[in-house]
């Protein structure tokens, strides 16, 4: 028993901690970055009081939330009210299990990694829905309904976009998908799969209920939507889950469409050797940061969508676009077009 603990369980627990702790820190500083970025976009300074340039602000926020009282609304469904934040944070963390940070640097190298991520992220909606229902509040309930409809709709477009990636890469394993993009940045999938790339990222924004798709919160319409009744740590957990999901979606976009840990200078004569010392993790984090910045930029720029506009965009624009592009990708794959579809023609040959 102890042997098994030392050999199997302990290393995995350590690895999990190695992912979760930095993730939590990233979430904390993502909120700081958000306030700063939006502040500068709106010609303000943003938080600058706590610590140097306000750098300790997230710590102060976390402490404040920790010490606040969690209030249970009257006539709420107490059990579900408490389960909801757990259901929100659980999938947001579990999805990281299959994320490759560098070649071989992955907690669980499973074959159906992409499917796993889709399945786990699709569950994050339960946190929102249950929170909205259990709160026994009209606003929270409206938020839950909006979120349920929105997430289910955009999951389809997102799934189709990912199908394009897996056709191109010939694998569901995230590591293999990255390796299939080797050979310079013009091999990355954002070029041949450009429409899918756009659809994926926008659907990702919608899946995480972020602006301009934040109708589930909609603070100007339904106060704060599904988490209007939550306070203190319970609220903080929703917050954590949302930001962890944002980072996940951004890192997935980097992995699936931007070559993951691969250096952008691969295949360029001088620069390739010049930058060869940089670890893959840095490139991955850099690419992720670009997408995270896009998230913040969207929030500062776009007004919120109306509910029916969201539905129209999802069903009538994204799904047809992805379907058409899937046909194109499949055709390209069969006929070995460009530098993208040549290496991985294994599955189409059918004789493997």
């Amino acid at each position: 028993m102890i042997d098994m603990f030392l050999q199997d369980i302990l290393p995995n627990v350590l690895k999990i901690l190695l992912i979760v702790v930095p993730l939590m820190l990233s979430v904390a500083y993502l909120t700081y970055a958000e306030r700063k970025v939006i502040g500068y976009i709106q010609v303000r300074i943003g938080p600058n009081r706590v610590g140097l340039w306000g750098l300790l602000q997230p710590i102060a926020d976390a402490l404040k939330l920790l010490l606040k009282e969690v209030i249970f609304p009257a006539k709420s469904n107490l059990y579900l009210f408490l389960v909801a934040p757990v259901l929100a944070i659980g999938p947001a963390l579990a999805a990281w299990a299959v994320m490759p940070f560098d070649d071989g640097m992955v907690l669980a190298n499973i074959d159906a990694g992409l499917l796993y991520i889709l399945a786990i992220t699709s569950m994050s909606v339960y946190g929102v829905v249950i929170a909205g229902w259990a709160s026994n509040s009209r606003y929270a309930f409206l938020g839950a309904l909006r979120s349920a409809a929105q997430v289910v709709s955009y999951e389809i477009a997102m799934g189709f976009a990912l199908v394009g990636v897996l056709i191109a890469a010939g694998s569901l394993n995230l590591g293999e998908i990255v390796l299939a993009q080797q050979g310079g940045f013009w091999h990355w999938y954002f070029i041949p799969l450009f429409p899918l790339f756009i659809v994926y990222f926008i659907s990702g924004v919608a899946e995480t209920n972020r602006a301009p798709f934040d109708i589930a919160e909609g603070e100007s319409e339904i106060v704060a939507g599904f988490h209007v009744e939550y306070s203190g740590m319970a609220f903080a957990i929703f917050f954590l889950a949302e930001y962890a999901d944002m980072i996940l979606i951004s890192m997935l976009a980097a992995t699936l469409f931007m070559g993951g840990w691969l250096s952008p200078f691969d295949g360029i004569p001088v620069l390739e050797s010049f930058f060869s010392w940089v670890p893959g993790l840095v490139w991955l984090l850099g690419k992720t940061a670009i997408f995270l910045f896009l998230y913040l930029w969207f929030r500062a720029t776009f007004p919120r969508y109306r509910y029916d506009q969201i539905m129209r965009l999802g069903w009538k624009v994204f799904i047809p676009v992805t379907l058409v592009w899937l046909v194109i990708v499949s055709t390209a794959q069969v006929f070995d077009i460009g530098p993208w579809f040549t290496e991985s023609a294994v599955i189409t040959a059918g004789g493997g």
Partner: protein
Amino acid sequence: MESVIFYIFAAILLFAATMVITVRNPVRAALFLVLAFFTSAGIWLMLEAEFLAISLVLVYVGAVLVLFLFVVMMLDIDLAPLKEGFTRYLPLGIIVAALIVVEMIAVLNAPQFDISAAQATDGSNTKMLGRLLYTVYVYPFEIASVILTVAIVAAITLTLREHHRKLQDPAKQVMVKSADRLRMVDLRSKKQDGEGSES
């Protein structure tokens, strides 16, 4: 170790499935159904059927039951009529259920189900499944897709009511005259005896 995990999953699954049909609140029933699906996905994972397990979670937990919840949450079901007749039909129900249980125990005890033959193959069964679906089972697979298409057509046929749609016609709005909206009625105040009727 594995059998311990299996029994834990199986116990949760049975508990959740029982709760689905006994719990009073439909929303909680739906949530227990989610739990049941999730644990059965776990059991499938233990059988190395990872594709099936993941698609179960993806399709049922991630999409079907969300929509289910969506509908159930909006319903305001009065549970009293549903309970009516429960005790009246209970004896008959118990007898039938007991008969079925006895029958199934008698029948399914026979050692004919060769479960070992159903072990998963080595390697990625996602790839194997995909290859089978698009070659040997391509015909049933296509029929299944037709069924889904028909389901959409049927659902739209039964729910879309074109003539009840509220549409604004700007041209009509511009052309509207005051007489269309306002009707002038001559309401002569009754003369009360002596007193004015202003107040």
